[in-house]
């Protein structure tokens, strides 16, 4: 199976006045056509930077140091700016966290949808407008024709996020990147938006990368998941597999922090004791080692991804055939 998106060894740093911030350090993953990949991790683990690197929308100072991101076989990181902007909003759509700030306050929402269509499709303004009405209808914005003329401030947060979805889906993308699309919304609205996204995915067949803090959302809405920490992938696998038997101590910590998975209603992660690494100078080996109850001396050496089960692998020395078990505190390998 060739993946729709194949990210390999992505490494991104921010070069700031206070030195290099190593935000993403060798992240690799694949997304198959039509599937939903969830990315979880604490704040600052590099989820957003990973996605923005792929779309080449990094803020000033951010630079992809190495790696590849093949989208339908083409390396996004090697395209020129024109080719890249042809893909953005077209084959790859993106939704952001804060619908209050991600729409332009001085343009009507209709215009913001229409300009996207006109940019990527050889259609007249009238046709683009017609399409925008269909899109508003599709994302369930009531009386779409009238709402087209409204400004963002006349919409609620949930409605604005629907507008963002309409924009992202305007050109029927093959991949939709949604960076915490519901974090800024009320719990009830959160569900509506996610259910809508899943419905639209079933209809349009696009793949989704869904970034979230919320393991409940991962369980309910994604097929495979990526657990990130300190700019690296700690664990990757089918959601069912990872939840049945999390292979990385960090993943176990995350899951344990949820009181009751079964009647989940959107709890956010409760932090594991300790604080995330300073990305100016991350630990040489496993970034989680300083907080890890199962850390050993070997953890100071970078671990490879090791297969834990079918469709599940983890970056933890504990999975290595030679690793000592049962667990010793600070034991020697």
């Amino acid at each position, binding site marked *: 199976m060739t993946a729709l998106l194949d990210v390999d060894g992505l490494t991104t740093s921010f070069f700031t006045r206070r030195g290099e911030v190593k935000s993403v350090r060798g992240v690799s993953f694949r997304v198959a056509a039509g599937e939903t990949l969830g990315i979880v991790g604490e704040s600052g683990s590099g989820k957003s930077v990973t996605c923005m690197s792929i*779309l080449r*929308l990094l*803020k*000033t100072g951010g630079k992809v140091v190495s790696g590849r991101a093949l989208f339908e076989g083409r390396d996004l990181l090697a395209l020129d700016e024109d080719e890249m*902007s*042809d*893909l*953005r*909003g*077209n084959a790859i759509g*993106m939704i*952001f966290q*804060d619908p209050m*700030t*991600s*729409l*332009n*306050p*001085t*343009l*009507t929402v209709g215009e913001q949808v229409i*300009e*996207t269509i006109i*940019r*990527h499709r050889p259609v007249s303004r009238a046709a683009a407008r017609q399409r925008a009405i269909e899109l508003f209808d599709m994302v369930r914005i009531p009386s779409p024709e009238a709402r087209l003329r409204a*400004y963002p*401030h006349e919409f609620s947060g949930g409605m604005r996020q629907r507008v*963002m979805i309409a*924009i992202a889906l305007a050109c029927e993308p093959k991949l939709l990147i949604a960076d915490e699309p519901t974090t800024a919304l009320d719990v009830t609205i959160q569900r509506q938006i996610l259910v809508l996204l899943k419905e639209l995915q079933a209809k349009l067949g696009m793949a989704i990368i869904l970034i979230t803090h919320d393991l409940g959302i991962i369980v309910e809405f994604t097929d495979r998941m990526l657990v990130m920490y300190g700019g690296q992938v700690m664990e990757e696998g089918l959601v069912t597999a990872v939840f049945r038997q999390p292979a990385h101590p960090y993943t176990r910590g995350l899951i344990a922090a949820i009181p009751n998975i079964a009647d989940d209603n959107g709890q956010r992660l409760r932090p594991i004791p300790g604080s995330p690494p300073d990305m100016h100078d991350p630990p040489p080996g496993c970034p989680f080692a300083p907080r890890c109850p199962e850390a050993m001396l070997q953890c100071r050496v970078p671990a490879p991804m090791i297969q834990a089960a079918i469709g599940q692998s983890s970056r933890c020395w504990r999975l290595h055939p030679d690793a000592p078990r049962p667990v010793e505190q600070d034991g020697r390998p």
Partner: protein
Amino acid sequence: MIAYLAQRLALMLATLFAIITLTFFLMHAVPGGPFVSDKMMAPEIAAAINAKFHLDEPLWQQYLAYLGGVFTFDLGPSFKYPGMSVNQMIASGLPTTAKVGLLALLSVIALGVPLGVVAALNRNRWPDTAVMAIATIGVAIPSYVIATLALYVFAMRLKLVPTFGIDDWRGYFLPVFALSGFWLSYVARLTRSSLIETMLTDYMTTARAKGLRPGQILFKHGLRNSLIPLVTVIGPVAANLLTGSFVIEQIFALPGIGRHFVLAITNRDYTAIMGITIFYAVVLMVMILLVDLAYLALDPRIKFGARHP
């Protein structure tokens, strides 16, 4: 819309009334008067003159009479230029002041905004550094220094432009340059910082994530939003430039309103001082009203009657 305009107009009239009252009584509170000078004047002549201009009447009566005049657009006779009314004085200075001011305003907008944009787009590279260096000098050095220096270099040394007057079209260059220097620099700096700030907003990231072309991103999404803070300063700036800088008019010997104003103050020409002050106030208030209307056009979040935060 109509109700809003009516409300604004009423507010402007009230402000004008306050300004007139304040200026009138402040002016009369200062010792001395238009016909008090070192030349000795026969008491009966002084009395006759005072009677002619109603200066012998009680102050409140003079005030009421003046107020009545203003609201019928009659600013009264000049105390110092016999046979000339203040209306005529303003009318004679206005064309010069307005022409130079309008050109200055034009250069502030037509040069200041693009320079700021160029600087913002080349942030921390040489075009930015160059524009900001010049703009910093422009803000720091007073206009009369710029005017004098420019006069020396371009008019006296290089003889590219006349040293005074605007009979020749080349005569406009230096006064306009000197008058606009400060605000041009100011607007360039403001445009730069505003655009840089706008570029960092989420909706600009959205615009890029939609694949829009760089030109669309800059003009349709970036510039429009960053012009909003600029509109705030343009109103007072326009009023300032259109009413003229008396220093600049003095240096270039331009027969504008500013010069009349300076003379009026030194002469204690009561009606002229009052008249020109009122004229300035009206221009300023009209500009501020225009700014608010521009806001409405630029920023859909603003409703009639509510000012921008």
